[in-house]
């Protein structure tokens, strides 16, 4: 708590000129410091305990699970549960998830970048209308259109295939992606566009040699964000696929529960394994992930 309160004193002191002012204020905010400190500690416990329980449970034997105290370390730690999961169809589910996520993100980024570029480049009523449509799209609950999407996928002869998940997932990732890219592209200095026009560049050259390179940080950010959403997506896979060999990980987790039944440690091992790839992304690209989650929403 003492380190915490020191850090609290640094509030607003990120820019040098105010450091002195901040220091003089340090002693003066007990109520707010206490409240947010208590909330922070309480929340930390609340966030960590379930995740800790998840991991230790996945390392218990089935017998230990019924006898060990839930929050104690496993009395005879084992990786058996992980073996059980990995010996099954896990690799199939993992590959499906990776394929669906990578293809969806790639399609979304290419298509959304072009769309965002036209929104920023053209100020005619049509481009305004298209932007408004995407904004409207932010408010369309995916659940609300699932029945027509199901019908459409059946009619397109795509039911129970991975593309059946990719196409609607990409469509529903578009609004946020376009919105974030548009707000980023708007901040590219106009003089750069004008210079390219003077050089006689057309839209395509502008897209490839100016917009795409300049938008790279935003593209990485939305890629990570969209990737997380698609990786964790459940409803489209639930409704648009049915065979086990087409299942992606979140859907597979519900299959594991059915398969393992009361074998909770094995189910928890599957949960941990399904989350590991996102944990790796988090470790590698924490900044982009945080930026992606707040980009376009925070102002």
């Amino acid at each position: 708590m003492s380190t915490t309160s020191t850090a609290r004193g640094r509030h607003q002191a990120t820019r040098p000129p105010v450091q002195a002012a901040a220091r003089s204020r340090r002693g003066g905010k007990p109520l707010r410091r206490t409240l947010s400190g208590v909330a922070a500690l309480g929340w930390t416990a609340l966030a960590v305990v379930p995740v800790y329980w998840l991991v230790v449970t996945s390392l218990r034997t089935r017998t230990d699970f019924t006898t060990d105290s839930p929050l104690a370390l496993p009395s005879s730690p084992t990786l058996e549960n992980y073996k059980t999961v990995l010996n099954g169809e896990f690799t199939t589910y993992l590959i499906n998830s990776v394929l669906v996520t990578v293809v969806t993100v790639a399609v979304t980024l290419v298509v959304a970048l072009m769309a965002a570029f036209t929104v920023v480049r053209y100020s005619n009523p049509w481009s305004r209308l298209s932007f408004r449509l995407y904004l409207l799209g932010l408010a369309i609950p995916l659940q609300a259109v699932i029945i027509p999407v199901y019908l459409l996928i059946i009619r397109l002869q795509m039911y129970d295939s991975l593309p059946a998940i990719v196409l609607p997932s990409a469509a529903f990732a578009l609004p946020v992606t376009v919105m974030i890219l548009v707000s980023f592209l708007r901040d590219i200095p106009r003089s750069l566009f004008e210079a390219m026009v003077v050089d006689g560049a057309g839209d395509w050259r502008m897209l490839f040699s100016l917009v795409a390179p300049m938008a790279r940080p935003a593209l990485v950010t939305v890629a990570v964000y969209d990737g997380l959403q698609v990786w964790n997506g459940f409803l489209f896979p639930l409704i648009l696929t049915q065979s086990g060999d087409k299942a992606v990980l979140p859907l597979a987790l519900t299959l594991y529960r059915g398969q393992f039944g009361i074998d909770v440690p094995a189910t928890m091992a599957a949960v941990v394994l399904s989350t590991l790839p996102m944990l790796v992304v988090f470790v590698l690209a924490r900044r982009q992930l945080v930026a992606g989650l707040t980009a376009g929403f925070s102002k």
Partner: protein
Amino acid sequence: MTAVARTPCPAAPHRARPDTTRAGRRGLSGLLMAAPALLLFGLFALIPLGGVVVLSLTSWDGLGSISWAGLSNWSGVLTDGTTWQALWLTAKVMVVSWLVQTPLALALGLFQAPRGRTRAFFAVLWFLPLLLSAVAIGLTWQALLDPSFGIGSTPGLHWLARPLLGSPDLALYTVIFVIAWQFVPFHALLYQAGIRQIPVSLYEAAAIDGAGVMTRLLRITLPQLKYTLVTSSTLMLVGSLTYFDLIFVLSGGTGGPGTATRVLPLAMYITGFQAHDMGRASALATLLVLFGLGLSMITTRLSGFTRMDSQQEGM
């Protein structure tokens, strides 16, 4: 914005190519660039949005042929008590979630906002739930809250050894709690980002004027967070219409016990894909759309999302 769009005209004179052709080609390439996104979005989001209204006037079991049913689904849905219960539960989840999550997210955002190692470390821990899928969270909490083998068998925590998800009185609140567990970190991030954007000069001016802690919080921080509050609330309210995955898993796909957690999206799924009455499910889905559009119309108006200018202009 307009300046950029008009630039070809002044640039044209030293080019041999007639101006009209260039404009025509530019229009074409713009169309080609906008088309794929519009096609994808139109086909899988906009057309289904209209489609769901049309389907609500038909009778379809999900496999066979679709036949016209007039308004019978609607009269069925609107006179069915379970519809109104689902709407009530949805509204309840929405309001209670907002009341629980907003103060918590704001408090955590205030804590996270100053930069520093301790805070960054806390932030990483808080971030963990955001990485888990709703299904993973659902399965974990379901097992964790199991009255026999869950957290309730820990010494000192026996008061948790009750059917938190199994009792009709408690299940909805348990669901709201798990939803908060999943989403509060995200909203805390929004508030943190909002707080970090407040100009320090405001605090300096207040410090010179001798403003106290609470004054600064109430007169500077909270008013400056107006847009963040609107954004976060919009996402929470509209998002709470779509809590499907988590409730689906926590209730074992039933919206139970009984119908205690059967919110609108679950009622729609169960009607359509378990009871095979797609027409009636489409009517429920239409209600969901109306609910969502109404909410977002109110909130986008407040947040000014549709403004066409750059957010950095004038700073």
